[in-house]
């Protein structure tokens, strides 16, 4: 498979994962709680650590799956596994179109178990230092795993098809792409906007973001089927 197809798949997968809302919601929550308690400078540091945490789990997950595929699937996923991944991606896309957000007009609550949501809210409320913010970033990205796991598999498979020199660069590009919404939010808050404005924007555009996420997953599924299976 050519490097261009690999890079295109990685970029598409990065966009699909970046459109997931849990880690972004976690950062909004962290901003909201931290700005109420701490100075702006400390909040900026906490947000930076949160983003590092989120990036760290993405980077490590892709590297781990590269290692597993390299050792247990003889360097590349078999066609059947790619079909399963594409099926899961398509299923995730349809699930996002239909039931990504809970019903209700003025919220961006996701279909997560309530105790888990409360746990993240409690963690965000009690985050006072960098390590806690880092672990909150890890946790919120980890919680996206039901949707992002198939994406990680596809990305790891693409990375293993690339030349050795470009493999690490590809994983870094993917990791940065997934963090773009978080970085954008950080920049907006840095320029004086509040987390509430960001949340209002999320509520206003929630239908768009749901359709965008679902479509991105569906397109990725179609891309995997077209270029990697057929």
């Amino acid at each position, binding site marked *: 498979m050519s490097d261009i197809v690999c890079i295109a798949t990685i970029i598409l997968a990065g966009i699909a994962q970046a459109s997931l*809302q*849990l880690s972004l*919601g*976690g950062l*909004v*929550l962290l*901003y*909201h*709680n931290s*700005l*109420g*308690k701490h100075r702006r400078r400390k909040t900026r540091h906490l947000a930076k650590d949160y983003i590092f945490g989120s990036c760290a789990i993405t980077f490590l997950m892709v590297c781990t799956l590269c290692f597993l595929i390299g050792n247990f699937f003889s360097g590349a996923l078999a066609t059947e596994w790619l079909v399963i991944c594409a099926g899961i991606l398509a299923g995730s896309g349809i699930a996002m179109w239909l039931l990504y957000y809970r019903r*209700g007009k*003025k*919220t*961006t*609550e*996701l279909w*997560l178990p309530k105790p888990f*949501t409360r746990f*993240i*809210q409690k963690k965000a409320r009690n985050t006072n230092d960098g390590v806690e913010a880092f672990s909150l970033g890890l946790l919120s990205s980890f919680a996206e795993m039901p949707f992002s796991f198939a994406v990680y598999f596809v990305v790891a498979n693409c990375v293993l098809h690339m030349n050795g020199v470009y493999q690490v660069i590809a994983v870094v590009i993917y990791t940065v792409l997934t963090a773009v919404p978080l970085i954008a939010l950080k920049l907006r808050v840095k320029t*004086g906007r*509040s*987390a*509430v404005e960001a*949340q*209002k924007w999320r*509520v206003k555009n929630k239908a768009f973001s749901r359709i965008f996420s679902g479509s991105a997953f569906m397109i990725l599924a179609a891309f995997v089927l077209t270029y990697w299976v057929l």
Partner: protein
Amino acid sequence: MAFKKKKITYEYSSNDIKNSIMLNARSINLPEGWAKQIATRVAKSVDEWIADKEIVTEGDLRKKIVSELKDLNPDLAYAYQNHDKII
């Protein structure tokens, strides 16, 4: 006076109301003095509202606070009402 939260009864505290309003006010970059004024005014009117009641639910208390905040600062009312509905 007391209020109910998930079948647990708590003693009502005017200071808790003020503190939670202050937290939300800081998170939307409201100036400290203005935030204090709003918190004091809302706490006072909630005190008057709750005075003749033996028990109220947390939902009713929140609704009252939000309705008071809406008149004084809609952004703060939004932040207060929706801070637990982000994820």
